[in-house]
Every structure is written in C-alpha cells, then in structure tokens.
C-alpha cells in the first residue's frame, strides 16, 4: 500500500524521467520531472519534482516534500 509523505519528508531519487508528451490532463504542465523516490525511513513513492528538468535532476539526488496538489505530492531538490 501507499507510503505516506508530509511536510519535512525527505528522500533520494532512485530513477527519474522528464515527461515531454503528456496526457491531456497534464498537457499544461509538460515538460515536467517525475521521479521514483526512496523515502528516508522506508518506502518508495512516485512524485513530480518541482522545476525538475533533464539538466537539474540526477540519480541519488536528495529531495524534500514541497506540497500536495490534486494529482498528489510534489517534491523539490534539496
């Protein structure tokens, strides 16, 4: 089942992509960075990374929870 994330939750990037061709629901956000995040303390989530691009994202990079929106959690590079 899902891993809970909240204010202050940190983790590191296990893998990432930048979605250029999105579904209609996300078309206004594309391109956007998505990563599998290993949460500190256990569990993994898939989440968008604020300002995540092919240039800024990297494997094992540390991230921290930024905010939730209708589509779920958003993290940022820390």
């Amino acid at each position, binding site marked *: 089942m899902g891993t809970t994330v909240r204010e202050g939750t940190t983790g590191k990037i296990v*893998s990432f*992509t930048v979605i250029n061709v*999105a*579904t209609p629901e996300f078309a206004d956000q594309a391109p*956007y960075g998505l990563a599998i995040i290993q949460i500190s303390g256990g569990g993994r989530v898939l989440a968008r990374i604020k300002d995540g691009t092919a240039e800024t994202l990297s494997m094992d990079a540390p991230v921290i929870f930024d905010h939730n929106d209708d589509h*779920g959690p958003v993290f940022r590079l820390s």
Partner: protein
Amino acid sequence: MREMVVVGAAETKFGRSESSYRELAVEAGRKAMADAGIDAGRVESLVLGSFSPGTFINQEHVAPLVASELGLDHVPSTRTENACASGATAVMTGLMQIAAGMHDVVLVVGVEKMTSTPIGEATSILAEAADWESEAKAGLTFPGVYALMARAYMHQYGKDRSMLDAVAVKAHGNGVGNPYAQFQKAITVEDVRGSMMIADPLNLYDCSPISDGAAAIVLTAKDVADQFARPGIPFLGFGQASDALALHERDNITSIPAAQIASQRAYKMAGIGPDDISIAEVHDCFTIAEIVATEDLGFFEPGTGGDAAISGKTGRDGTIPINPSGGLKAKGHPVGASGVGQIVESVFQLRGEAEGRQVDGVNYALTHNVGGSGATCVVTILGRGE
C-alpha cells in the same frame, strides 16, 4: 494433460487501417480457420484478447460480438483483459479449455482498434494499465514508466543510449521483410537520436506505435489434430505470472520478475532451456524492454543484454534472433493483438513460411507478452511438431 497444438494461424497487416474493430477481428479469424481447413461450425469456443475497446471505440461485450460476426454457432465466447498481455492471456485461456477437455477446437483472436482515437486520449487510455492511484494520477505515462527503467538500467550498468539505438535500428530493419508490419522502412541511428523526445531518455523511435490490427489461431489437442489441413505446431511449455502494477513498489526496476518467473515455468514444462531457443518474439513495447526481456528470459546475463544488441547477437543472423517480425516496435502494437501475433509469427517461422524474414533452422520459438510495466507476463514455447 492433453498436448495442445496450433493448426491455424493468421493475422491482418498491423498499422493504421480503414477497417473497423469487428472487420479486423473477422479478417484474422476467417483466415485462421481457412488455414486450418475448417469452417465456423467446427469452432467450439471463442476467446478474445482485447485491452480497452470500451474506451477506444465505445464498445464492450466484444467477445459475443466477434463470435456473431464470424458466424460461430452460439459458442461460449469470453474476452480476456490483462493490459498489453491480453492476447497471450486469451491463448492461455484457450489452452486451459482444451487441456480440461471442455473443448476440442478453440478459436483465439486478439484485436485492438486504436488509431481512431486522438494521440493524447490514447496515451491516457494506455496509462490506465499502470497503477492509477500512485502512477497515472501523478502524471506518469507509459513511455515514462519505461523511461524510469531505462535510466535506472543505464545508471546501474554504466551504459549509454547506444544500446537503445541498436534495438530500434534492428527492429525496423527486420520490419522491412515483414508484409504484416506497420513500418517496412529501415532507419539509422541518426533517425533514432534525432526523433522527438517523448519521456527522457526515450525518443519517438524508442516507442512502439499506436496501431490497429488482429491476429488469430486455431487451437486443438494433438489427439484430434489429424482432422485439420495443417500439421499441428505444439505448445511445449507455457507460464504466466503477476506482480505489483506500480513500478516503484518493486525493489528491482532493471528487470521484470514476472517475466523471469513465467519463463522459468515455461522452460520447466517444455524440458528445455534458453540455449535451446531458436528465435524469440519478445514484448519490445520500448527499446529498453527488449534488452531487459533478453536478460529475464535467460539469453544474456543481467547488464549484458544491451551489449548483445549492439554486437548483433539478436539480429536475424545472430546467435539468438530476437523479433524477426520487427517486434512491437516495427510490426506494430495493436495491444490485444500483439500477444497472439507473436504466436502467429512463431508458427510461420516453425513451418518455414515466414517469407522475406525466415530464420534458418527454427526448432523452438519462444513468445514473451508483457502487461503494463510487468504486472502480467505470459511466456510460451512452441516446437516444430512431427
């Protein structure tokens, strides 16, 4: 258990078609029955593999629709859905009906009609095969799922995208020889690298296309197989396995455990191993998927499948030809048809009838059909028969 064989095999050309869903299914089904030398009255059951006709063409309840269009006589008809493995799951269901002694002759059809749907909407429909709550809802597309796998693979094994280029160029080269293929035109590494970015690091030419198409086989048991026009091509082994839908719920994202387990089940049943396989039709929905498949199936050690592709070992003249049909990448990927189409191609290759793309000396053919990012996998092994 009864020994099951294929006595009829056929498919439509894959690609952008003027034909409707039902016309495609009927074309493949009729051709398969003609190949077996039977009329509709001999078919005792229909199993139809189809992923999402309800969203693609606003039509559910498609198994009896196709049975009726084919003129099958009030036979039981059942649709199977396992995302992109819906086709091979239909074959598994047909095999079980015969193994159980319920029926002697089962028609299995795989079909999808996708190109009448706008590309954005099609991307949304395909994303429904991922875990909606934790993946698709968060903005993950299917190219995105495999992009995550590709990035992790390249990082773990220190590889660059040359291996992806090699798979794409090989697939399109093989498609040139296949009259059923959506793409019958060779491409270069420059074409692949210059194509539009879809989900970093996957470009357009790393992705299988949106396609229309259908494929069909006539299944029967060896004990009655002498009643048909064609000699039976036997299923020597088959296996199916499942896993979590969400990629991030799996510890290892550079292999597909369900594929490893399904293939081990199939190899054990067939009493042969990876080294015995002559050709394999694998689920190359994306270039990275073919590399991972060749490792999961035991043809190459983990981390070496990419180098094997670059060195030509998976080419038509290589040590283990992978996707001589062109694969999903070049032959096309009408979702529900793909898994049945892999078996149709294997039957053609085992009969020595794969004109323009025949591999010499095919004794054992393996098929590998994956649903989602690996939550379903079906592997079958076919032999030459007598």
